[in-house]
């Protein structure tokens, strides 16, 4: 790669405080949500949980879902994006002040939403369920968080454009290309939920409208509901491609495959949301089938990633002297958190992804829809692939921000192992119970029923898994806090991203920007969602009466 002028090597990262502010907010909310999750499982088990009322349970579930799905993820992704922008482009952010503005906007929104839920006026879960409506301030708070993330998207896009103007013809570093891919995808993704909140739910919550078209609101939310998961996943994949190969002591097998995978995520994570509505009456089987077909294609970038990252691991293992068909696996530096986390994440992705293939299988969805199987699936994907990699990313970038190194990697490895074990112990029984028909989203089970009684022991096993997860979350905070307090001074103020085996000198402009892919997304969305949304206007169904909770 051509030598680029290096901006300030010794000085601290300009975005250091910004990144840390975002990610510490994310972590604090995450730890709280983990503890709530344990209590929820306790409440649903045959054991007596304190404070157990339906009102408390649904308040807790709403807080858990909103914290994990909207706050942890959005703040982590924004913080990590700023870090990637500065360290991979090696230039200052377009506007640090705007970034701080968006941070505080997100904080205000989070507090509004949190107070609404804690006060008991917003127990509608993070998926809303109109015609139920909460206090309008709950939704407005969440809209502010989304607006904050939109500002972040624009900063990321602008940062890449400026860099490209300064470095004509050069490939955008893969980490930044992927970050901007996520920003572009997120702008598309949020259109659905924003339309639902602004045109349907918020007017109903204020009392301006008395009825709501629930088919339309579910369809608009489904627009967002699948791609949002890829929004959460992107940082994990960025770590797989640009941090893991270097941590393993090798190189990225193929830079082009990385770009292709990220572009495929943009295309195929959006026109697939109807697979969340397979069991709904309002969409025809034709459109359900079409979106099922597109959902099958979204497995392709993950399959490609598994190959490319496994090949990168093999490159590293052989460079470290591993021999034979499998000898390179043992030669990998498993003592390093990023390598260990990637291995564990792949294992959990295998189970979570396999469950996902069953969920998306059209008629087969009837077997597991709204059962604990689905809860198990998305906890494995979210906790097992998203969160464990967020943790590994923190361990990788914290030294460059604090300028301190971890005194020992042992507690870091212990934390990652606990997270993995807890997640498997919690979700395997959930899968099993889901197949038995255990349904989701209830505050308590009636264990006097013989069938439900037989589930009791498995529910307790999953509770044990949840406790292990909560311990891991607390150890995670302890590890980072110890770095701040007792870390070994002298860590460099930057990070080196993985180099490809064949670093790209030129890439086609289609893999160096997003113009073409935006057009393809627009066409696919028109095809997949055009009629499913238009039908509610062409032939409006009877509306449901608004039920206000807050």
């Amino acid at each position: 790669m051509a030598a680029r002028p290096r901006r300030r090597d010794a000085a601290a990262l300009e975005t250091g405080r910004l990144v840390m502010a975002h990610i510490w907010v994310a972590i604090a909310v995450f730890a709280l949500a983990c503890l709530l999750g344990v209590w929820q499982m306790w409440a649903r088990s045959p054991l007596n949980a304190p404070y157990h009322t339906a009102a408390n349970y649904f308040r807790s579930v709403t807080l858990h879902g909103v914290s994990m799905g909207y706050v942890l993820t959005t703040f982590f992704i924004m913080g990590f994006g700023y870090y990637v922008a500065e360290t991979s482009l090696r230039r200052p952010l377009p506007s640090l002040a705007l970034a701080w503005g968006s941070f505080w906007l997100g904080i205000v929104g989070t507090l509004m939403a949190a107070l609404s839920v804690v006060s008991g006026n917003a127990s509608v879960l993070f998926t809303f369920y109109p015609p139920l409506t909460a206090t309008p301030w709950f939704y407005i708070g969440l809209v502010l968080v989304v607006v904050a993330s939109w500002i972040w998207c624009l900063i990321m896009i602008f940062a890449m454009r400026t860099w490209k103007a300064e470095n004509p013809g050069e490939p955008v570093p893969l980490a930044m290309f992927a970050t901007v891919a996520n920003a572009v995808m997120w702008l598309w993704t949020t259109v659905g939920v924003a339309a639902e909140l602004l045109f349907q739910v918020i007017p109903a919550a204020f009392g301006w409208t008395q009825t709501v078209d629930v088919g339309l609101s579910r369809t608009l939310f489904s627009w967002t509901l699948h791609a949002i998961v890829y929004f959460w996943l992107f940082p994990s994949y960025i770590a797989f491609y640009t941090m893991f190969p270097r941590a393993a002591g090798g190189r990225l097998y193929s830079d082009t495959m990385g770009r292709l995978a990220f572009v495929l995520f943009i295309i195929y994570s959006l026109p697939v949301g109807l697979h969340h509505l397979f069991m709904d009456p309002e969409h025809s089987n034709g459109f359900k089938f079409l979106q099922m077909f597109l959902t099958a294609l979204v497995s392709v970038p993950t399959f490609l990633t598994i190959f490319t990252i496994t090949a990168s691991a093999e490159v590293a293992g052989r460079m470290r002297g591993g021999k034979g068909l499998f000898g390179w696996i043992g030669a990998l530096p498993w003592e390093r958190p990023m390598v260990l986390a990637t291995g564990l994440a792949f294992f959990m992705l295998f189970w979570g992804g396999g469950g996902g293939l069953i969920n998306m299988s059209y008629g087969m969805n009837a077997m597991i829809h709204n059962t604990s199987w689905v809860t198990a699936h998305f906890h494995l994907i979210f906790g097992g692939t998203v969160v464990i990699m967020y943790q590994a990313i923190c361990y990788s970038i914290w030294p460059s921000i604090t300028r301190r190194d971890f005194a020992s990697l042992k507690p870091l490895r212990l934390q990652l192992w606990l997270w993995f074990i807890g997640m498997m112990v919690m979700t395997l029984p959930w899968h099993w119970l889901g197949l038995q028909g255990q349904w989701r989203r209830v505050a308590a089970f009636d264990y006097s029923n013989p069938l439900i009684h037989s589930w009791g022991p498995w529910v307790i096993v999953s509770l044990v898994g949840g406790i292990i997860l909560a311990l891991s979350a607390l150890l995670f905070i302890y590890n980072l806090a110890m770095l701040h307090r007792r870390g070994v001074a002298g860590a460099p103020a930057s990070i080196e991203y993985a180099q490809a085996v064949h670093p790209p000198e030129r890439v086609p402009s289609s893999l160096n920007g997003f113009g073409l892919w935006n057009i393809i997304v627009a066409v696919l969305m028109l095809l997949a969602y055009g009629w499913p949304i238009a039908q509610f206007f062409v032939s409006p169904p009877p509306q449901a009466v608004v039920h206000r909770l807050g």
Partner: protein
Amino acid sequence: MALSEEAVLKSELRWAAIVAVIVGIILIAILYAAIAMHVNPPSNAEYIDPKTLHLSAEFTESNLGTRVDPDGQVVARVIATQFEFVPNCFVLPADRDVTIRLTSPDVIHGILVTGTNVNTMIMPGWVSQVHTVFHKTGDLLMPCHEFCGLGHSQMMATVRVVPPQDFHPGPDGRVSCDNRG
């Protein structure tokens, strides 16, 4: 492992072909199940005004529960409402095509029947419809599986599946959990 640019590209392409085969097999299996085995989701674009269910011919109180329609089809009609099913128990025969029709006057609900593949969302404004054949007899649980408010957890019905020889509709074609002859 060979790491020339051509070797990397070739291995990636070979893997892409394998992925295409895997995804293709999955799609063929789903297509086969849909077309040959009629395994499809319960789509049913049929409107009903949730504000006037009690005035509709079909979902008035006296018409709820199981009835053998004049054409011989066994149909159970159920209303899901905060926070109960009406009726909260209904009888269906085993080993015979049956239809369950559901709707809601208030908010979104959903059902599954434990140990079967009966599963559908129930939305105000729409009639949900599931066709199935039960093979197990006995009292099966039919809980509400979608959050519908603070009383959601108490919302549960029983599907009483009886052997075909024990299914005795009355002269009006109706069968209920109280009097099944």
